[in-house]
C-alpha cells in the first residue's frame, strides 16, 4: 500500500466519483492500492497519488470516456482502455505511463491542439486551463498538422486558410451577465452538458451536430445562454476544462491566487464556497466540493450575485439625525455610537425599561445574533428581542416543539438520496432552495416519487425528465384541511405504522387523534369543497406516501405563513409519525429555511420568550445560567414580538429600536402599519449595508459589514454549523459583532454595568457553548477540524447529529396533536374576489436588498402579478398590462403576466422590489400561536391601471426625501 498520500491537495479532482463497495486490491505502477469495488482505475490511481492525464473526466460527473487521454495499460487486457470508465478488479496490474499510452496521449493532444487557438498568454484561463496542463503533462512539443493553403477550416480562426470567411467560427456568447461561452475554445468534452444534466438537473445544454459539426448549444434554435432554460447555476462553468465557459470576473480581474473557504449568505441551504481572490479583491466564488450541504454545487445567487458588497449604494460611514425629516449627517463612529447610546438610555429613563427593544437578523452570524439578544437581556434588561424568523418559521418552532420536542429539521440534506417518496408542501425549491432542488431532482431521476402540494404549478411539478406523481393544487389557506385529509386516508385505510407508533409515540394520544381524523368531515371527498383538491388524487397521494417506502416531507413558508401555520406544522409532524417516517435516513420533517441563518437566529435565543437553546424565560434554571454568566437579573416574563413592538409603538409605549440586518418596512406585512409604528418611535437604529426601507424612518444608521468581511458561523436548515471566514477587511471599519459591542459598552458605561470584552467571535461561541447544552462541544477548533458539525453536539453526541430523534423523540414520546381546520378570517367577497399568495423567484432574494444590486436584475427587473387567463379576460387584462392590486389594507400597481400556473381565483406575486411593495396589500392577520404573518392569503381585487398608485408615488417621494445625506463636515 502506498503511504505517501498526505499532504495531497484536498481539492484534487479524482476524475470519477467515489464508490462504496467492498475493498478491492490492485497494483498501479507497482504500488498496491486498495479501494472500494466500483471505483474507476483513474480514481484508484488518484487515491494513490498518481494523476492520470484526463480531459473529459471530472469527479463531479459520471465517467464519459470520450477524450481518450486517460488511457492506461492493464495486464492481460488488449489495447489501451480508458481509466475513467474501467472499474478496478482484484489483482489487476495497471501501468499508467507506458511507452504505448504516452504515445497515444501525445497523439490525442496533438489533434486537440491542432483545432485550438494558441493565445494562451492572453487567454482568461491562462494558468487555470486543463487543456494547457495536459499539453504540458504529455510533453506535446509540436503540432505536425499543416493546413493546405487552398483552404481548410478550424473552429477558432475567423477565416479559413484560403482567406475566406470561416462558417465554423462562431462568435462569443456573452448574453449571460456572469460568464461567457466562446465556441472557438471548446474541445467538446461534454462536461458542461453533463454538469447541466447530472449536477443541476436543468438540461439546458446539449451537443448539437455530429463529428466535426459538434457544438455545445444552449436551448433551442436561435437561443443564447440568456434566453435558454439556463438558470446560471455555474455548474457548467465549473466543469469546463478550458476558457470556453469562463467567469466574466476572471476575464476582467485575472486568475485568483488565494482562496478562503466560507459559507454563502443567501438561503438556508448554507452552501460552502471558496472565495477566490487576488489580494483583497474578490475574483470569484466557487462552490466548495467538500461542503457537506452543497457537495460542490451552487446557484446563481451564491455563485455570482455578490457584487452588492462593493455596490456604490453601500453606506460606509455612520450617520445620525434628530428627526426623519432631516437629511442624514455623516459622523465618526464615536459620535454615532454615543448619540445612539444616549437616545436609548434617555428613552428607558423616561419611558421605562421595556420601552426599547431589538430585532436580530437571520442574515447575520450566530455570534452577532447572540450579542444582539444579549443586548436586550443584559443591557436593556428586558426580553424585547425578536428576529425576522418571526415572519417565516416561528410556527416551525412552535409546531415541532409541541410534537417532537425541538424546533429543527430532522435530517441532513444527504438524506434525500435515500428517500423513496418526497412530499414538497408550500415550498418552491427550484427557486427558493435551488441547490437542494438539484439534489432532489437527481433522486427523482433515480426513481423516487414526488407529491407536490401547492396552489401554483411550481417548476418542481414537471421539470426536465421528471414529473410529480401528484400535484394537489389546494386553495390558499386550506393546508390544514389537506394535511388532515391525507391523515384521514392513512388512518381509515389502516396504512399507518402501528409498530412505530406503539414504540415511539403515546398510544392513547394516537387513538384520540385517530378518532378525530377518521371523522368523515376530514375525508378527501368532504374537504374537496374547501380545498379544491380532487378527492381521488388526494387519496392516491396519501396511499403513495404511506406505502411507497421512505417518506420525506420538505416544507416552506407556504406552510407557516398562515393563520393556521403552527397547526399545519403539527399536522405534518403527525403524518411523519403516523407513517413511521422519523429517525433514520431518507425520511423526516424538513423545514426549508428561507435565510442563511434562520435556524441559528432561532437557536440563539432571539425570540422574546426564550433564552438560547429554546429555554423559556420562565425557567429559573435556564435564567440562572445566564444571570451568572452576565451578572444581571433576567426578566422571567416574555417580551414583545415584532408585531407587538409595532402595535406598542403606535399606542405610545414602545419608543426605541435597534434593528440589525432586517428591513421590517419592506418585509413585514401591512406596510402602512409598520411605517406608522416606526414613525412613532423616538430612536430607530438601523444597522445594515444599505439605506433600506426601514432606514427611511431611522435616526441612527450604523453601516454593516458583509459576510465576506467578518468571522462567525451560520447554521443552515440541517442544523449544520458552518464557518463564515473573514475574506477581506470590513470596508465600513468594523465587523458587525464589534459594532454591537461598541453600542452595548457605550450604554453600559452610562448604566455602570460590566462592559463586554470580546476580541474574536470564537470567544462568543465559547460563551454560547458554555451556556447552551446543544452546543456544548462546539468551538472554532472543532469546526476547523471537521469543516462543519450539526447540533446537538455535546457529551451525548460528540460527533454532532446528522439525523434527529433516532432512538426516541427529544421530548420522549412523539405527540399527536389534534389539527382542526379553521378557515382564515381573510375571506374573498364581492369587493375582493381573488386570493393573492406571494413567493420568491430564483434570481432574487427576499426584499432584494442584495440581489437587486447585482446583475441578477436581468432575470427579474420588477415584480409581476401572475393571473390566470380567465380572471384576466373578464377584467380586460392582457399580458404586460399595468394593473392595480387592492386589498382591504392598501393598493399598489404592477404589471400582469397571464399564466395557468395559478388556478382561476388565485393570483401570485413576489416581494423583491420596494417600488411594488407587495406588503402594502398583505393584512395583519397572523398565525394563532406565534403571530407569524399570514402573507400567503390575502383577498384582493385586480383591475386595469394607468401606472403607479398615488401611494406608490408618495412612498417614493418620502423615501427619496429621507435618504438625503449631507456632505461630511470638514
Amino acid at each position, binding site marked *: 500500500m502506498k503511504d505517501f498520500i498526505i499532504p495531497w491537495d484536498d481539492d484534487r479532482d479524482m476524475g470519477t466519483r467515489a464508490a462504496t463497495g467492498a475493498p478491492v486490491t490492485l497494483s498501479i505502477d507497482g504500488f498496491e492500492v486498495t479501494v472500494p469495488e466500483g471505483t474507476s482505475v483513474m480514481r484508484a490511481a488518484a487515491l494513490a497519488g498518481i494523476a492520470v492525464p484526463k480531459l473529459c473526466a471530472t469527479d463531479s460527473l459520471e465517467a464519459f470516456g470520450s477524450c481518450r487521454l486517460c488511457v492506461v495499460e492493464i495486464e492481460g487486457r488488449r489495447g489501451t482502455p480508458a481509466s475513467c470508465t474501467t472499474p478496478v478488479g482484484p489483482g489487476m496490474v495497471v501501468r499508467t505511463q507506458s511507452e504505448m499510452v504516452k504515445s497515444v496521449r501525445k497523439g490525442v493532444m496533438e489533434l486537440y491542439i491542432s483545432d485550438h487557438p494558441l493565445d494562451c498568454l492572453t487567454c482568461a484561463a491562462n494558468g487555470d486551463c486543463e487543456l494547457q496542463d495536459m499539453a504540458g503533462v504529455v510533453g506535446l512539443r509540436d503540432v505536425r498538422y499543416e493546413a493546405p493553403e487552398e483552404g481548410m477550416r478550424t473552429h477558432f480562426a475567423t477565416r479559413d486558410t484560403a482567406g475566406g470567411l470561416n462558417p465554423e467560427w462562431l462568435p462569443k456568447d456573452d448574453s449571460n451577465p456572469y460568464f461567457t461561452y466562446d465556441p472557438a475554445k471548446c474541445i467538446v468534452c461534454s462536461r458542461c452538458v453533463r454538469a447541466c444534466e447530472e449536477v443541476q438537473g436543468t438540461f439546458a445544454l446539449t451537443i448539437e451536430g455530429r463529428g466535426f459539426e459538434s457544438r455545445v448549444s444552449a436551448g433551442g434554435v436561435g437561443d443564447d445562454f440568456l434566453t435558454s432554460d439556463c438558470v446560471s447555476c455555474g455548474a457548467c462553468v465549473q466543469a469546463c476544462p478550458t476558457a470556453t465557459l469562463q467567469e466574466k470576473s476572471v476575464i476582467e480581474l485575472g486568475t485568483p491566487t488565494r482562496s478562503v473557504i466560507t459559507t454563502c449568505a443567501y438561503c438556508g441551504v448554507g452552501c460552502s464556497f471558496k472565495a477566490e481572490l487576488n489580494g483583497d479583491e474578490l475574483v470569484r466564488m466557487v462552490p466548495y466540493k467538500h461542503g457537506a450541504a452543497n457537495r460542490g454545487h451552487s446557484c446563481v445567487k451564491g455563485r455570482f450575485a455578490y457584487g452588492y458588497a462593493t455596490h456604490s449604494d453601500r453606506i460606509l460611514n455612520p450617520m445620525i439625525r434628530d428627526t426623519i425629516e432631516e437629511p442624514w449627517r455623516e459622523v465618526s463612529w464615536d459620535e454615532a455610537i454615543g448619540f445612539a447610546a444616549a437616545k436609548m438610555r434617555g428613552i428607558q429613563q423616561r419611558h421605562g425599561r421595556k420601552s426599547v427593544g431589538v430585532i436580530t437578523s437571520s442574515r447575520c452570524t450566530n455570534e452577532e445574533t447572540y450579542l444582539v439578544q444579549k443586548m436586550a437581556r443584559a443591557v436593556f434588561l428586558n426580553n424585547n428581542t425578536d428576529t425576522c424568523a418571526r415572519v417565516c418559521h416561528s410556527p416551525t418552532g412552535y409546531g415541532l416543539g409541541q410534537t417532537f420536542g425541538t424546533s429543527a429539521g430532522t435530517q441532513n440534506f444527504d438524506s434525500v438520496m435515500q428517500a423513496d417518496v418526497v412530499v414538497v408542501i408550500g415550498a418552491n425549491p427550484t427557486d427558493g432552495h435551488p441547490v437542494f432542488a438539484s439534489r432532489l431532482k437527481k433522486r427523482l431521476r433515480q426513481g423516487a416519487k414526488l407529491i407536490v402540494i401547492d396552489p401554483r404549478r411550481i417548476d418542481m411539478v414537471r421539470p426536465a425528465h421528471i414529473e410529480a406523481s401528484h400535484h394537489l393544487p389546494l386553495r390558499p389557506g386550506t393546508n390544514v384541511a389537506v394535511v388532515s385529509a391525507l391523515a384521514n386516508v392513512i388512518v381509515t385505510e389502516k396504512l399507518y405504522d402501528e409498530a412505530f407508533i406503539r414504540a415511539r409515540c403515546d398510544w392513547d394520544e394516537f387513538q384520540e387523534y385517530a378518532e378525530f381524523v377518521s371523522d368523515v368531515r376530514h375525508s378527501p371527498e368532504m374537504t374537496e369543497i374547501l380545498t379544491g383538491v380532487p378527492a381521488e388524487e388526494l387519496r392516491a397521494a396519501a396511499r403513495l406516501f404511506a406505502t411507497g417506502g421512505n417518506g420525506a416531507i420538505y416544507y416552506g413558508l407556504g406552510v407557516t405563513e398562515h393563520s393556521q401555520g403552527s397547526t399545519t406544522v403539527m399536522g405534518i409532524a403527525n403524518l411523519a409519525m403516523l407513517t413511521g417516517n422519523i429517525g433514520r435516513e431518507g425520511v423526516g420533517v424538513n423545514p426549508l429555511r428561507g435565510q442563511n441563518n434562520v435556524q441559528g437566529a432561532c437557536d440563539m435565543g432571539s425570540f422574546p*420568550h426564550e433564552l438560547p437553546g429554546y429555554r423559556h424565560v420562565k425557567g429559573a434554571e435556564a435564567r440562572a445560567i445566564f444571570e451568572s454568566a452576565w451578572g444581571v437579573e433576567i426578566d422571567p416574563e416574555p417580551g*414583545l*414580538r415584532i408585531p*407587538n413592538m409595532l402595535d406598542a409603538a403606535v*399606542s405610545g409605549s414602545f419608543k426605541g429600536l435597534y434593528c440589525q440586518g432586517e428591513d421590517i418596512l419592506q418585509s413585514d406585512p401591512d406596510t402602512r402599519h409598520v411605517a406608522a409604528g416606526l414613525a412613532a418611535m423616538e430612536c430607530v437604529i438601523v444597522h445594515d449595508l444599505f439605506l433600506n426601507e426601514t432606514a427611511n424612518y431611522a435616526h441612527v444608521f450604523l453601516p454593516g459589514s458583509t459576510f465576506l468581511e467578518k468571522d462567525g458561523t451560520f447554521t443552515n436548515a440541517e442544523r449544520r454549523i458552518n464557518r463564515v471566514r473573514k475574506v477581506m477587511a470590513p470596508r465600513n471599519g468594523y465587523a458587525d459583532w464589534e459594532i454591537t459591542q461598541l453600542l452595548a459598552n457605550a450604554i453600559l458605561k452610562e448604566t455602570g454595568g460590566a462592559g463586554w470584552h470580546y476580541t474574536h467571535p470564537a470567544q462568543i461561541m465559547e460563551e454560547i457553548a458554555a451556556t447552551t447544552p446543544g452546543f456544548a462541544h462546539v468551538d472554532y477548533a472543532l469546526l476547523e477540524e471537521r469543516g462543519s458539525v450539526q447540533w446537538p453536539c455535546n457529551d451525548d453526541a460528540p460527533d454532532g447529529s446528522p439525523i434527529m430523534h433516532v432512538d426516541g423523540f427529544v421530548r420522549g414520546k412523539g405527540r399527536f396533536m*389534534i389539527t382542526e381546520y379553521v378557515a382564515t378570517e381573510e375571506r374573498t367577497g364581492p369587493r375582493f374576489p381573488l386570493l393573492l399568495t406571494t413567493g420568491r423567484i430564483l434570481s432574487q432574494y427576499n426584499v432584494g436588498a442584495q440581489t437587486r444590486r447585482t446583475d441578477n436584475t436581468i432575470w427579474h427587473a420588477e415584480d409581476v402579478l401572475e393571473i390566470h387567463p380567465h380572471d384576466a379576460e373578464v377584467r380586460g387584462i392582457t399580458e404586460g398590462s399595468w394593473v392595480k392590486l387592492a386589498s382591504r389594507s392598501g393598493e399598489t400597481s404592477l404589471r400582469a403576466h397571464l399564466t395557468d400556473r395559478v388556478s382561476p381565483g388565485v393570483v401570485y406575486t413576489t416581494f423583491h422590489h420596494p417600488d411594488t411593495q407587495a406588503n402594502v396589500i398583505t393584512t395583519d392577520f397572523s398565525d*394563532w*400561536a406565534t403571530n407569524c404573518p399570514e402573507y400567503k392569503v390575502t383577498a384582493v381585487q385586480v383591475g386595469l391601471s394607468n401606472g403607479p398608485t398615488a401611494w406608490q408615488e408618495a412612498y417614493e417621494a418620502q423615501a427619496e426625501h429621507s435618504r438625503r445625506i449631507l456632505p461630511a463636515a470638514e
Partner: protein
Amino acid sequence: MSPDKLTRMANQIATFFRTQPGPDQAERVAGHLNDYWGPEMRAELKAHAEAHADELDDLVKRALPLI
C-alpha cells in the same frame, strides 16, 4: 395596543385549544398567553375584557383569572 387586535389574537388561541382533548382547555389558553404574551399585553386584554367580555371567546374568559 389595539383592543380589537388583542381580542382577535386571544380568540384565535382559544379556537385552537377548544379542539384539543382534555378538561384543561382554559388552563392551556392561559398557559399559552402566559408563555408568549408579555405582562403588559395580558393586562391590556384583562382591562379590555372588563367592559367588553362579550367580544371574548368563552375559553378566553375562563383563562383570564389565570393570566
